[in-house]
């Protein structure tokens, strides 16, 4: 499907007023959100590399290109896109940007918006618009790329993106530290780690249930990834071993963590000041919530609560108590509902675009309200 085909589909809908559900490959980001549309506009066939000059470390691809395809193409040149959103790697780059989905690597490489150099999209009138460019630094014009990132397809359908790539590190090693001591000891380890000169690619604290699912024992653990030149990684591995008992694990553990959420009916993300999560991590991780995977990124200040898929039925029966976690959230944390059972959405997830600026932008870019209406709770 070309940009022109997307544009004509949207123009047609704009005329008839028929709303569209915008989808990549519909693999993992649908999230049960209550889109009021019967017709789907899928980008799954709009794939492929538009331009790739390895020396520039930039890649332009069509929006339907999967993350695994990008991984394959860039690996040939010893490069990569350090973007590992939770879910399956056969999700599309367009959906990843539209939903601003990030994973563990975000602590070192930033959020999806930080890796995006430019994009092309089709707005709700069927106009083809470009924001940003194809070079690594650019302030020409108002920043439409950032505006579209995380807009969930409601302002336009992303058809092409240009991304910043990195050279693959010479060394990429992962380690696990078992947090078997008291909450106080855990906090001490965290403090020591986060104030020492480490610069991990990723650093996540996993609850016992998450650790178990990854085959890492029955205790809360800390999963850490170091990348860079060999000397830098060796030095950090050595320094970590001075702090705690460590065990090296296969880098594939990160992949296992990412796909843990597959099929889950409920994923909630809490975000707050990093120090808050650090001090409370012992308590949170040891909280024996059966059927819930919990993991914390203490660098970004993000906590994910994932209802484990196998107990979905039980949870549905007792939704109030299981979802009650949201009511315990301190007022200075942000709650983002990523996935919920469809029927629960309207009841608990407030609209995140109810302010006058957001409503004004939506009206300007999608005047007929045909792009994913309702997906942001509006």
């Amino acid at each position, binding site marked *: 499907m070309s940009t022109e085909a997307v544009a004509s589909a949207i123009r047609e809908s704009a005329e008839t007023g028929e709303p569209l559900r915008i989808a990549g490959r519909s693999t993992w980001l649908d999230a049960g959100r209550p889109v009021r549309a019967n017709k789907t506009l899928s980008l799954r066939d709009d794939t492929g590399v538009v331009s790739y000059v390895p020396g520039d470390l930039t890649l332009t691809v069509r929006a339907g290109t999967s993350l695994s395809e990008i991984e394959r193409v860039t690996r040939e040149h010893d490069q990569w896109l350090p973007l590992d959103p939770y879910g399956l790697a056969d999700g599309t780059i367009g959906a990843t940007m539209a939903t601003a989905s990030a994973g563990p690597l975000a602590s070192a490489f930033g959020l999806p918006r930080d890796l995006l150099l430019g994009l092309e999209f089709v707005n709700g009138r069927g106009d083809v618009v470009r924001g940003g*460019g194809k*070079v*690594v630094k*650019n302030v020409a014009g*108002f920043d439409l790329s950032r505006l579209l990132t995380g807009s969930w397809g409601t*302002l336009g359908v992303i058809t092409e993106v240009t991304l910043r790539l990195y*050279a693959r590190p010479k060394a990429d090693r992962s380690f696990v530290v078992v947090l078997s001591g008291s909450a106080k000891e855990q906090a001490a380890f965290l403090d020591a780690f986060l104030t020492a000169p480490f610069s991990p690619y990723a650093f996540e604290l996993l609850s016992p249930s998450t650790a178990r699912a990854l085959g890492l024992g029955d205790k809360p653990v800390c999963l850490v990834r170091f990348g860079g030149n060999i000397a830098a990684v060796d030095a950090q591995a050595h320094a970590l071993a001075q702090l705690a008992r460590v065990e090296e694990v296969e880098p594939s553990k990160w992949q296992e963590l990412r796909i843990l959420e597959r099929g889950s009916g409920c994923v909630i993300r809490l975000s707050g*000041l990093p120090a808050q999560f650090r001090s409370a991590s012992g308590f949170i991780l040891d909280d024996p919530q059966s059927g819930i995977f919990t993991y914390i990124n203490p660098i970004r200040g993000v906590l994910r609560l994932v209802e484990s898929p196998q107990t979905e039925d039980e949870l549905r029966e007792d939704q109030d108590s299981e979802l009650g976690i949201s009511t315990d959230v301190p007022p200075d944390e942000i709650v983002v509902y990523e996935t919920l059972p469809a029927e629960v959405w309207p009841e608990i997830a407030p609209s995140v675009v109810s302010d006058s600026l957001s409503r004004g932008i939506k009206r300007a*870019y999608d005047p007929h309200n045909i792009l994913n209406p309702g997906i942001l709770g509006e």
Partner: protein
Amino acid sequence: MTQPSPAPTPTAVSTQSVVEHLAEIVGERHVLSRQSELLVYNSDGLPGYRRQPRLAVFPGTREETIAVVRLLAAEGLPFVPRGAGTGLSGGALADDIVVVGLHRLKKIISLDVANRRAIVEPGVVNLRLNKHVASHGLLYAPDPSSEAACTIGGNIAENAGGPHCLKYGVTLNHVLALTVILPSGEIVELGSRIGERDGYDLRGAFIGSEGCFGLALDITVKLTPKPQTVRTLLADFMSVDQAAHVTSAIIASGIVPAALEFMDGPTIRVVEDSIYAAGYPRDAEAILLIELDGLEAGVAADLETVRRVCIDGGARNVKVARDDAERMKLWQGRKKAFGAMGRLAPHLIVQDAVIPRTRLPEVLATIHTISEKYGVVVCNVFHAGDGNLHPNIAYSADDPAESERVHKAMIEIMQACIEAGGSITGEHGVGLDKMGYMEAIFSANSLNAMCELRSVFDPERRSNPGKVVPIHACKEWHGVPGRRTRMDPRSPGEIHEPRPLEAEPPRPSAQ
């Protein structure tokens, strides 16, 4: 589409009454209306371009700022927000309208070391913030060369970069949240101080909006731990081409230097003749200033790789700064290079195009050919690692013949960069200076989408009117001026958008 409402008839208010009202808010000595006093504010960092403001007001507190913006809103008066006036795009020029200067808002409101963030007012000078947080082992990463004078608010407006954004990213990547007063006087929170929120990234849309979306009242920035080790290398070359190729080779090796800066022979000699002399080899045709930072062990390994790449690529010498004093000296020459140009001529024109890194050697050669064609001396000092060029020409704007040659050369240079697949500005912003090129890189639909975004933040288009996007590119604006009031005319006539700059570049059609 809704039908545009009929254009309101501009009403005139008396300048004197506006001055009096503003003085009630900020105090008499913080309102300037005499033409002689306003001369200081008639240009930004590009002194060849001048526009005389009608008056200037300098609020000293958040409350005063809010009151000023609301007064201007009530009167329907257009205005230009201004930080330190160090911008390089003509973005802070105010053509017979009000300047709202924010440099008195210089409080560092809070510093949260544990969470590595600070909340600052917009007038805080970039370097002052860095000095303030340094003792906690932290830094604010964006470091435009004007860091000793430019303000965080101005950095937000331009989405400022700097040498170290090669590794650390630009202003956008270091701002978590803003409290903004819209031109209407409404106050909104963009982004979040406490975490990552969802919804539209209005924070991202505001950063780099060049003062067209309103004013930031406070800014929450992310701080970065100081690297354990910093090493700075100076490599010198007998040809520009060699240095350009070595730039690509360093990036291709997989190393992301903290900074990778390029200076050509003419620039080296101007700097060495000035008070900023850094000890660069005067006979070199190009130098690369390369900084590596991070963990000690990793940096030591990268240092060896970079040194080898430089030597293999034809470097005559590779010198590693022995201590901080030597590092600072090497950097001073680079950061003050534009200042040193003042030795050559009174005015300076600087471009800011970004090209794909692999096109550096050929574009630098093209720039050389263009400079010979027009008989001008182009100095090249730029962020090579990003492909962000800053070709600049010192000239006298008072000499019409020279001005014309200089501007023609610059237009051709810009066209060469655009043809190489680049952008017209990497960190300085569009302002007025580059507005004529916008249609060369964006389609009518894209420019219109930008106009629509602006209209949401500033429906009356009173904040920094006429900048960034050419007015004729905005479909729905044709014949519909935003509500504006003009002050009693200095000369009779309609309200006008700012006049184009002296040399208006051609408008090639978009691809």
